[in-house]
């Protein structure tokens, strides 16, 4: 999956390969952030487009944070939490999932592609999954093109 996505990026199919999406990734401390750490330890390569913001639990994510990132011009926003049923705080990841779904609906109503905001679930051991998810989102956002709210210029 990751390899495919990266390959697709390289070939530039359906997307402008020179476009470097800017993505905010909200990560829960126990699983997603730990998986990112492990991806580092394992020296996995993945696209450099996402910037991680660490939260204690994905249940801390608020709809406003997601909207605010879009409002500021982010091309994509990821919320990454523990696997279903595995939340270290019992049900925070379910709450996060619901809020992401709500945010997508709101964005759709103001004419922003809901795919710009996505929820991902993974365990702390899933380092390659983390890398795949970043690659997947990067590619997805690249296909969508720059945010209509962004400055259109990559940093």
């Amino acid at each position, binding site marked *: 999956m990751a390899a495919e996505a990266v390959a697709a990026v390289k070939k530039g199919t359906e997307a402008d390969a020179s476009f470097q999406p800017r993505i905010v990734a909200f990560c829960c401390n126990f699983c997603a952030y730990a998986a990112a750490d492990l991806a580092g330890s394992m020296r996995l390569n993945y696209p450099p487009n996402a910037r991680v913001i660490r939260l204690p639990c994905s249940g801390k994510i608020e*709809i*406003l944070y997601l909207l605010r990132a*879009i*409002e500021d011009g982010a091309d994509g926003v990821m919320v990454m939490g523990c696997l279903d049923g595995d939340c270290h705080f019992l049900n925070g990841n379910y709450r996060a999932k619901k809020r992401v779904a709500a945010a997508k609906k709101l964005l759709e*109503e*103001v*004419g*922003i592609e809901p795919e710009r905001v996505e929820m991902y679930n993974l365990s702390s051991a899933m380092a390659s999954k983390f890398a795949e998810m970043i690659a997947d989102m990067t590619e997805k956002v690249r296909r969508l093109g720059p945010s*209509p709210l962004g400055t259109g210029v990559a940093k």
Partner: protein
Amino acid sequence: MIVGERKSVTEILEMTKGYDRIFVAGCGTCVTVCLAGGEKEVSVLSSLLKINGKKQGHEVKVVEGTIERQCEREWVGEMKDKVRDAEAVLSMACGIGVQLVAEMYPEKPVLPALNTTLMGFPTQHAIWLENCRACGDCILHLTGGICPVTRCAKQLMNGPCGGSQNGKCEVDSQTDCAWALIYYKLKAMDRLDWMSKIQPPKRWDIAGHSGPRKTVKEEEVVP
């Protein structure tokens, strides 16, 4: 409490079209508690208005503010600066708040961001059940504290309709039959004899069917 829910964003965008300076006004009492129009919802809606504006290619200036209650003149008075600077007020209060704001700022368009849906209490977190219609003539003391005006689909006053099945309403099988609830409550109170008391025809004229009603507490009113 009064319960409301936010209108669809599409509808809100339609009514705010053409305004570039909008004051989104939250209310800190009922609609905060029912998760529809408090500070958090104000910030979410404001962000959406800004996103929409940016997307249309022009900047919408959105000011946020939440007051204690939009149904009291003194509190609504505190919003005056923010109202003055805005082209329109988008009120996240119930219908009562929207009307008071509109009345106090006669020159400003005041737009409702919520639909006021019911009066009731939460059965569980984030689910509210309608309990009262403000009919003006309460009989809860006779019906074991369960309101047939609100909770019986047919608003029957003298026992169930006959379509009640397994304690559920025949109009909606997910809803409890109010009269079944009344029966069990009276039984638990050992007052089943009340069931056979005949209720006289209800005065619907004071139930709000003939223009706005007024409530006056005489001894508090001084000239």
